[in-house]
């Protein structure tokens, strides 16, 4: 008898792991306006999935490798003043397209593509769970270690330099963490919805927070509620789990936005 024998328990733990890692990182994605960057990295990782399957490697390793390459490329190019919007659009969707084409070449292997596009949290096994929590702990540790430096670099690169912080190194830390989150989140929400797990909880947390730390903590809480609520909802309505989790997060965001909008209209006096 073990609590991990229950697939719902494993699913809930996997989702919580992703929510925990995505929260602080997602805050930086929002603050630094890197939303599309997260999207691009996630979309590219499907190519990694295809490569991993064709070379008989672990899907996690393949996705991580391609996500790393993608994130680093984008990060380097953005420093050189390219038209980022266009470039990201080209790279993200090309990588996704190549990934999908590559998957179609795989004969003999029966792949449920949907599982990678939208996640398959109910099929999370013990090994997956270990990988997800390993990645989550790594990301949380990395981001907490660099937290102050990351925040300073996010505020202003020159301010960071004057404090002896290299903003490019901090950008690299974020890039690495992003690749790890993408790789561990594939199983949970799938490549198409990873960016939502990064962005929606921090966006919903913003009106409650007065400090960056509070925003990260509240994001984690909202992410956790979304995961548990989504799992429950998927069970009740027999809907796909990954999208249901994102739907719950989106509904929370909507409720918070409407609520704080009404309060601002009524209050007027309170500081924002």
């Amino acid at each position: 008898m073990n609590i991990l024998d229950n697939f719902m328990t494993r699913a809930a733990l996997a989702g919580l792991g992703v929510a925990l890692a995505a929260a602080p990182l997602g805050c930086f994605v929002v603050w630094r306006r890197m939303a599309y960057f997260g999207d691009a990295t996630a979309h590219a990782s499907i190519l990694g999935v295809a490569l991993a399957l064709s070379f008989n490697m672990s899907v996690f390793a393949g996705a991580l490798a391609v996500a790393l390459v993608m994130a680093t490329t984008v990060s380097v190019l953005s420093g050189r003043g390219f038209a980022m919007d266009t470039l990201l659009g080209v790279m993200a969707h090309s990588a996704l397209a190549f990934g999908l084409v590559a998957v179609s070449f795989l004969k003999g292997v029966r792949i449920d593509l949907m599982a990678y596009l939208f996640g398959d949290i109910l099929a999370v096994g013990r090994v997956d769970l270990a990988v997800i929590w390993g990645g989550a702990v790594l990301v949380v540790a990395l981001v907490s270690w660099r937290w102050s430096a990351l925040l300073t670099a996010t505020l202003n690169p020159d301010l960071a330099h004057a404090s002896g912080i290299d903003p490019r190194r901090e950008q690299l830390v974020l890039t690495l963490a992003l690749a790890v989150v993408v790789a561990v989140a594939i199983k949970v929400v799938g490549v198409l919805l990873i960016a939502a797990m990064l962005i929606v909880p921090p966006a919903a947390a913003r009106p409650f927070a007065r400090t960056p730390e509070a925003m990260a903590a509240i994001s984690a809480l909202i992410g956790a509620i979304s995961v548990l609520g989504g799992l429950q909802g998927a069970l009740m309505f027999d809907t796909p789990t990954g999208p249901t989790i994102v739907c719950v997060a989106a509904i929370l965001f909507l409720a918070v936005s409407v609520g704080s909008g009404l309060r601002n209209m009524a209050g007027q006096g309170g500081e924002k």
Partner: protein
Amino acid sequence: MTHLIEITGLSVRQGGVLALSDVDFHIDRGEIVTVVGPNGSGKSTLMKTIIGALKPVAGRIERAKGLRVGYVPQQLHIDPTLPMTVARFLGLPKRVSRGAIEAALHKAGLHGLAARQMAGLSGGQFQRVLLARALLDDPDLLILDEATQGLDQPGSAAFYRQIEEVRSELGCAVLMVSHELHVVMAASDRVICLNGHVCCHGTPEIVASAPEYRALFGTGTGGALALYRHDHDHSHEGCDHDHAHDHHDHPNEAAE
């Protein structure tokens, strides 16, 4: 070495263009030095090189041992999605005590703002918070890169008076870049006129009358300088030379 910073033969490339070539520069303890120059003359490039954000292609920068630099950036945009109280901002990247925060805010002429959101501050208050942050480390050298951009005339005049006060209180050297020639030059010990290279330098009077300076800025500024220096002997906005206690109200006035 007696100078806080000594720069010799400095050349810096930015965006593929040689923004600074063969610049010699030094600043001593307690001095106020202002860098003036037209847009694109390399003023900010010089500041960024001094704080280490840009690497020179040639030349040397020597810093005094254990030099502590406080830096006030040109403009700081805090994304509206980033919640940030004044106290938390001052504690970046190093956490500091409540007392140190209050003391730094006081030196910058602010009171009771520690719990406020950065986004809710007026332009004048915001710049003073940046100044307070630069003062936290008890710097030997304060670097201000067009720190009064976006402030109105009385606001920036009040800000520069605060800088003078900080200098006389802490004895730190001040290196600043400014467009507001007449205000700044009156408050400076030395002025350096930059246009990719050092055009001319010296006391404000010498620089204002130098032909290189007049070629860049015209003679009108010379008149404004004289006018300001004349004004400076009188009291400002109802507070007289006993500045120390009245200044704290200025940011609020500037905000209106």
